[in-house]
């Protein structure tokens, strides 16, 4: 996301060389305009606000949460108590503060969500680029494989993968990546086809560029903004998948995440005990962050569509 941070500069950067600039305008400028128009939409603004707030919370959590607060053996609070003074969201069966657990859980949930998204993007973009560039047999075969994966139920596949790979963050990340790259692949392929139809590709080809050079130097930079913006929606679904897989017991049993909190609550009888304070906060956290990423994704889509249609 490094491109999005430096872009909202009001003044456009000076173009390097006049003849080159005409053919290949700065790629950051349209991205900057794009970010501004997303932020102007109320839903986009709210979504970005939520994203920033959660990221700041996750990054600064170690500053105000001491590791001993989260250790089952060292917690000092009352056991499975409803919200009270000092424990605004109550405690879990080990006497830990639910508020601190939820804040700490954002670290794992966001980290796995982002890692899985990176994996998804790399897989999807590679397959989409190759399928779009080699439009013959290879491209068709790859699209058939993609369609097949789209049809496959993703949770059973993810469960199967994670079960075989063993408990842990890595296997969950891989399971999410393998089951969610298909949407990106289709999107990137469509965009690759659009880019390849433009004259500068023909020029590069005439100058003797190889297939690899064409894909990495010409097509990829033009597809990249789309990949970045579509990743916001992927993060939302990756966080949901992470919560689901961890809830089913596939996560690292020692780490704290929203999914593992709900798993603990479910396994330790919070439901029959009526311990709603242990169940509600992790879910609300998931709801808000997923809503935030989804709103940003929708705003982005809206801006993209508004750009495409008038032409």
């Amino acid at each position, binding site marked *: 996301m490094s491109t999005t941070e430096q872009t909202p500069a009001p003044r456009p950067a000076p173009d390097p060389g006049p003849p080159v600039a005409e053919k290949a305008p700065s790629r950051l400028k349209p991205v900057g305009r794009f970010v501004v128009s997303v932020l102007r939409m109320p839903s986009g603004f709210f979504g970005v606000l939520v994203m920033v707030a959660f990221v700041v919370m996750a990054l600064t959590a170690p500053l105000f949460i001491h590791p001993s607060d989260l250790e089952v053996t060292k917690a000092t609070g009352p056991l499975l108590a409803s919200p009270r003074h000092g424990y605004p969201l109550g405690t879990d069966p080990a006497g830990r503060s639910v508020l601190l657990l939820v804040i700490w859980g954002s670290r794992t949930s966001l980290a796995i969500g982002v890692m899985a998204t990176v994996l998804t993007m790399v897989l999807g973009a590679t397959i989409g680029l190759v399928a779009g560039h080699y439009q013959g047999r290879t491209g068709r075969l790859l699209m058939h494989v993609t369609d097949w994966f789209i049809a496959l139920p993703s949770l059973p*596949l993810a*469960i199967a993968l994670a079960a075989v790979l063993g408990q842990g963050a890595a296997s969950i990340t891989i399971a999410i990546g393998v089951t969610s790259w298909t949407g990106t692949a289709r999107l990137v392929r469509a965009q690759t086809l659009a880019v390849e139809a433009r004259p500068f590709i023909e020029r590069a080809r005439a100058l003797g560029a190889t297939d690899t050079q064409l894909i990495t130097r010409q097509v990829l930079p033009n597809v990249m903004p789309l990949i970045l913006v579509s990743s916001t929606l992927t993060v939302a679904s990756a966080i949901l998948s992470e919560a689901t897989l961890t809830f089913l017991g596939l996560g690292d049993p020692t780490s704290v995440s929203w999914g593992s909190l709900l798993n603990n609550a479910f396994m330790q009888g919070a439901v029959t005990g*009526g311990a709603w304070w242990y169940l509600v906060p992790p879910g609300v956290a998931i709801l808000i962050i997923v809503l935030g990423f989804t709103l940003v994704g929708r705003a982005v889509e809206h801006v993209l569509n508004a750009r495409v249609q008038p032409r």
Partner: protein
Amino acid sequence: MSVPVQLEAPTVSGPEEGPERSDFWVYLARKVGAAIVSFIMLLVVGFVIFSLMPADPVSALTRGRPTSDAQMTHLRHELGLDKPLWERFLTFVGHTLSGNLGYSYEYHQSVSTLIADRLWPTLLLMGTSTLISIWLGMWLGIRAGWHPGSVLDRSASAVSLALWSVPTFWLGLILLVVFGSGSVGGIPAIFPAGGMQTHGTAGGLALSHITDVAWHLVLPCLTLVAVIFAQYVTIMRSSIIDERGNPYLLTARAKGLRDEVVRRRHAVPNALLPSVTVIFLQIGGMIGGAITVEVVYSWPGLGYLTFSALRIPDLQLLEGTFIVFSAAVIVCNLFADLLYRALDPRVRRQ
């Protein structure tokens, strides 16, 4: 940016001049062929995940039990692990096709028997939830799409978005703790806390048994409906919006028909066509929700079986449920293709 979208429309090839009937058989053969290819790919993926990826399936099988080396070797031989890869794959395909999905050492039962026992509860839960969601989703989607931007439309979209952002299992947990535990805010335990029937009641087709099962079905069904009906709203809404601009609706209005009649008799039948296919394609996504909901409500179906297999972990059983879930989706997709053609005469004449 004029995107040359390559819509991969089903290009019906075959005899151009042939009568419609023979065209249908060509179409059917193509679709069934594609489904068979999908199934073979499923078997390959299943084989790779469950037979190649685990370092040693035998030690995974015997985890937690004292096993001598001789027993291990015997088990390895029995499972055919000492044979070459292609032979193992062919054996696996042969077994799967003949309905032999392996043996669960945890349950001391064949996997197919276990799955067959749990199939009916899952079908009951998913079937009921799908029907209610389709009905509710269409009802809302039609009305929301007919007046886009109206209060109903905006609130339907907001509710759909919020419900999409909620993990299915969490919604289930919340409904369960509020209506099933009897210890939150003085709300009595209106619904049972889980399972499919009250302990000790007789099965069969007695009326009391049916109402008992229905009583247990309410919360799981409500959870699933809440999560999936939103997709149907979205599909139906955009489908209706697409129809709204068509001139035949202007004609219908010019005839002096009431707005409601124009919608019900003219717009909806046309908007239904594209939706029907998409509805069947959604079933794959539903399976994920069904698994977690079954876990939360200990509903004795395939999802709960998967969960139990996961906790042991019993890879044979997991492989069996994985193949059954995926095969079900392949069949649903095939059905969607055939249904679309049966419903839409335009596809037939392409």
